[in-house]
């Protein structure tokens, strides 16, 4: 017998359920007075550097029906491509930009809206630069494990064409599912959980 590897197993995931808002956006769900404001509602302070953008996302199930009980968290670099994280070793990120945000679907329309700044570029482990992107984590009733994906930007065609993550997707006809369209300062991003237009999700 060899020595035992004394590693623990990760706690198993369970769905966030239909009432995830009670815990993660209580003010939005009508539970007021517990926290001053819902966490993650403001990504960029007034002094944050960079181009201010608005993102509108919608989530659809496999029948094409809008999902109205989703919660999405986003994580992104600042305008210079630095993360506001203790694990960021390359320099200090913009102190006026949190980089992390949380938004719930509108319970009537299913639309999720957030205001942020357009992220700068971040290197892949081999040093090649990735195209600007926002990492997304999606939970909802019916999702047993949070889904990971990325949102890229339609007006970054050249960078997207060389992105180390996008270029390793075998079925290149699925890459457009990760690219948000631009209209003025608003990007729109539709997430399809299942079916012909299924969004690319990651195991990372």
């Amino acid at each position, binding site marked *: 017998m060899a020595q035992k590897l*004394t*590693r*623990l*197993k*990760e*706690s*198993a995931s*369970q*769905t966030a*359920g*239909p*009432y*995830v*808002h*009670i*815990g*993660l956006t209580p003010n939005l*769900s*009508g*539970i007021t007075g*517990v*926290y001053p404001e819902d966490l993650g509602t403001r990504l960029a302070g007034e002094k944050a550097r960079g181009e201010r953008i608005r993102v509108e996302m919608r989530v659809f*199930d496999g*029948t094409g*029906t809008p*999902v109205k009980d989703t919660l999405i968290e986003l*994580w*992104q*670099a600042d305008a210079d491509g630095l*993360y506001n*994280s*203790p*694990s*960021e*070793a390359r320099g200090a990120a913009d102190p006026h930009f*949190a980089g*992390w945000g949380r938004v719930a679907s509108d319970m009537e329309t299913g639309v999720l809206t957030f205001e942020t700044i357009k992220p700068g570029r*971040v290197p892949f*482990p081999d040093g090649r630069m*990735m195209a600007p992107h926002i*990492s997304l*984590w999606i939970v909802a*009733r*019916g*999702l*047993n*494990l*949070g*889904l*990971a994906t990325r949102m890229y930007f339609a007006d970054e065609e050249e960078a997207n064409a060389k992105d180390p*993550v996008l270029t390793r*997707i075998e079925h290149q006809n*699925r890459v457009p599912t990760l690219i948000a369209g631009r209209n003025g300062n608003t990007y729109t991003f539709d997430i399809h*959980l*299942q079916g012909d237009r*299924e*969004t*690319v*999700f*990651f195991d990372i």
Partner: protein
Amino acid sequence: MKNEKPETGAFFQRDRAWHPPMLTPGYKTSVSRAPQRAPISFPGTLSEITGPAFGHAMLGEHDNDLTQNFARPGESAIGPRIIVYGRVLDERGIGLSNVLVEFWQANAGGRYRHKKDGYLAPLDPNFGGCGRTITDEEGNYSFLTVMPGPYPWPNGQNDWRPAHIHFSVFGHGFVQRLVTQMYFEGDPMIWLCPIVNTIPDRAAVEGLIAALDMQATVPMDARAYKFDIVLRGRRSTLFENRMEGN
């Protein structure tokens, strides 16, 4: 153990055979929400290795006391008073300091304070159902609440959730993000539940069942349940000449 310097190693691959699969027909809502195509893998980049940090300064006085944080002055939530405590560890057994832990639950009668919950059990005017805390230097957390009740849900004709508390946990990297549910030792409803049964491995379910701990109980006040949460481990940089993030 206190880390001198934040770690920058990539995370261990997630064991997706241990977690519930996305498609679990016994839990009906998963059927039209489960992706059908395989997820794509790539090596952890800075976007995955980094994650947000939260300071203790954001916490209010009663954020980890659900018996009080929604109660009118001088009143308290109704139900069996319990302390829930434990550690947030990673797969290497290292306690994760300064990570945000959020929790939400139904009241003692199984009713959620949410406009979509129409269950006939009444709301408790002194119970909101949400709380949060941040782990200490060793990864410890604790909160006070009332034991939630089981409740029926429209899945099968007669499906009931076991008593449970939802947990949302941050690690030190964004891909450690986890939501799960805590169940209570000895509850016969656990093994009947279609959501619990999305998990293929019995040992993985047992990892979500909090143990009654009479030693941590406060006599004449509140019983205690211990619930440790394990997040993904990460590779240590054993050799300095490795590329960063590998």
